[in-house]
């Protein structure tokens, strides 16, 4: 699977991993990773210890690969002075200098970044406003709630106006309202052409926000690309599941089961739906249209039940073949 690499974006606008391995002594961080990440929102998904944070640290040049090479927008990660002009990073840890207010926190790191005093003030307020912390900017970060800390961390990552934003678990601890605001901000940034690379354990959120995903397990990339594309490639081994709620489920089940690509069609427990498993979802949907028209069926809903990150994660990482 190399869906990301296939898209039409020049390599100087991509984050490229070429056969990258990272070992900590004898411990495997990531192994033989080849990726080509285009602009947009990319979700890194995997269980604890799968290599997400290692991948992010490699991406931002905090770690150098044991083997292979990495470039961010055409800049090798072993040139930190140039690289960090383009990259904004927020770790999953809360690393705040004691005693700093939200404003001081952002402003001080902008100064370290090399921004002159006049620019620092403008950029700091801009970042603080974007994450909705204007009111709290004068308060000490130590007194912030978990959600506010996440937002101030995000503000420090975007404050220097990078081209690539790398965020480790950015949605942890946010309440639903703040989460929606942050996701909207990600979308706005990505729509402008920024790379937003986020890691998360929360699969439905990754599904919701990501243009493409990278699934990791045990230091290996097990899948990458747009979720639908990844799912399509798995159809042979894991047929797609579609739930159809209709007026005559038995008739629909018997009609669709006549097709070669359909491997299972059974009446759902509620007695009003048919659960179909097919190895060719595109063909099945064409067939479904035909069956509905030919038999004058009343269809209430057609719901793919496993074309999301959660299902892909279950198939590839957790259950290795189990149904989600």
């Amino acid at each position, binding site marked *: 699977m190399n869906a990301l690499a296939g898209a039409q974006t020049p390599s100087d606008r991509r984050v490229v991993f070429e056969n990258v391995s990272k070992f*900590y*002594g*004898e*411990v495997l961080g990531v192994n033989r990773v080849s990726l080509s990440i285009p*602009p*947009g929102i990319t979700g890194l998904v995997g269980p604890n210890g799968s290599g997400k944070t290692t991948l992010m*640290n490699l991406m*931002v*040049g*905090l*770690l150098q690969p044991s083997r292979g090479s990495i470039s961010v927008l055409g800049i090798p990660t072993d040139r*930190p*002075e*140039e690289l*960090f*002009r*383009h*990259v904004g*990073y927020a*770790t999953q*840890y*809360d*690393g*705040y*200098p*004691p*005693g700093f207010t939200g404003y001081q926190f952002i402003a*001080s*790191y902008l*100064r*370290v*970044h*090399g*921004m*002159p005093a006049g*620019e620092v003030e403008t*950029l700091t307020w801009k970042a603080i406003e974007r994450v909705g912390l204007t009111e709290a900017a004068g308060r000490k970060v130590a007194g912030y709630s978990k959600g506010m800390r996440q937002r101030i961390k995000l503000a*420090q990552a975007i404050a*220097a*106006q*990078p*081209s690539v934003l790398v965020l480790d678990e950015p949605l942890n601890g946010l309440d639903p309202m703040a989460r929606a605001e942050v996701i909207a901000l990600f979308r706005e*940034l*990505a*729509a*402008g*052409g*920024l790379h937003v690379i986020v890691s998360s354990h929360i699969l439905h959120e990754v599904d919701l926000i990501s*243009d493409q995903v990278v699934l990791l397990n045990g230091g290996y990339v097990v899948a990458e690309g747009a979720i639908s594309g990844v799912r399509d490639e798995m159809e042979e081994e894991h047929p797609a599941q579609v739930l159809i709620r209709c007026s005559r489920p038995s008739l629909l089940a018997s009609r669709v089961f006549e097709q070669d690509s359909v491997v299972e069609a059974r009446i759902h427990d509620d007695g009003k739906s048919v659960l179909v498993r097919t190895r060719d979802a595109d063909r099945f949907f064409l067939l479904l249209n035909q069956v509905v028209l030919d038999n004058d069926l009343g269809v209430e809903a057609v719901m793919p039940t496993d074309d999301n990150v959660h299902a892909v994660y279950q198939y590839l990482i957790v259950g290795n073949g189990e149904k989600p």
Partner: protein
Amino acid sequence: MAVYERSYGRYTGPLTAERTRFLILPRYAYEVVLKSKLFVGFLALCYAPTLFGLLIIYLYHNLSALQLIGLTPEKLNEVFPISNEFFFVGLWIQGLLGFFLVLFVGPALISPDLRNNGLPLYLSRPFSRSEYVLGKMSVLLILLSAITWVPGMLLYFLQGYLEGAGWLAKNWRIGFGFFVGSWVWIVYLSLFALAVSAWMKWKPVARITLALLFLVLMGFGATIKNVLDTPWGMLVSSWHVIDAVWMSLFGLAPGTDLPPAGLSWVALAGGCLVFLWLLSRRIRAYEVVR
């Protein structure tokens, strides 16, 4: 398919000079240390010996003031001769005060960043590990300079100005010894404190470790010296080593309990290399799991 408008523009405005960017770090460190009244009081105390030196030099060149307190120039010269030794003792006192200042400030420099996982915040910017260490070190370099060679050189030049007739040139070794001796001690102490701060996550523990290392190594050196009857044992004692270096810089005869000056220079250089190695092991964005 997502459509990217490329409306987002990265920052392309002016930047500050890379060479001086590390000086951002001391600015915030001073804000923290100067909030402590105890520290401000101690810093003021550090200038007492300089004021005393200033008073002696003033009295030397002001007969009426000297007579006012019932002293003669000969008597004053007997008690406080303005010589190599006068400035050496000044450096010795300021150096000792510098150690206590480092005990106060040094442990707080790196350990909080390590404890709070703050290093990635610095190192994921156009800011290298060396610049981070230099930035943290400059807190001590500036503070220690302010209490060692800066007042020392002021006294040296004041004495030269008041004495006139080539005193500065004739006593160049005093100025040279004070300046170089101060810097050697400043660099050594700063690296020592930073290395301890980088390995001890808690400030009080770092402070105690720094003090203990200083005292224990001094005691260890004295034991070797006594048992083996050789001053070489004192090479492990930072204070005795710098004492020997200072005496050589001021052209004074070394005491019998001090190690040879040449070896003392080597010991100081070796110590600095060890501290740098310790720092390089710890100043990383992430710990290496083995």
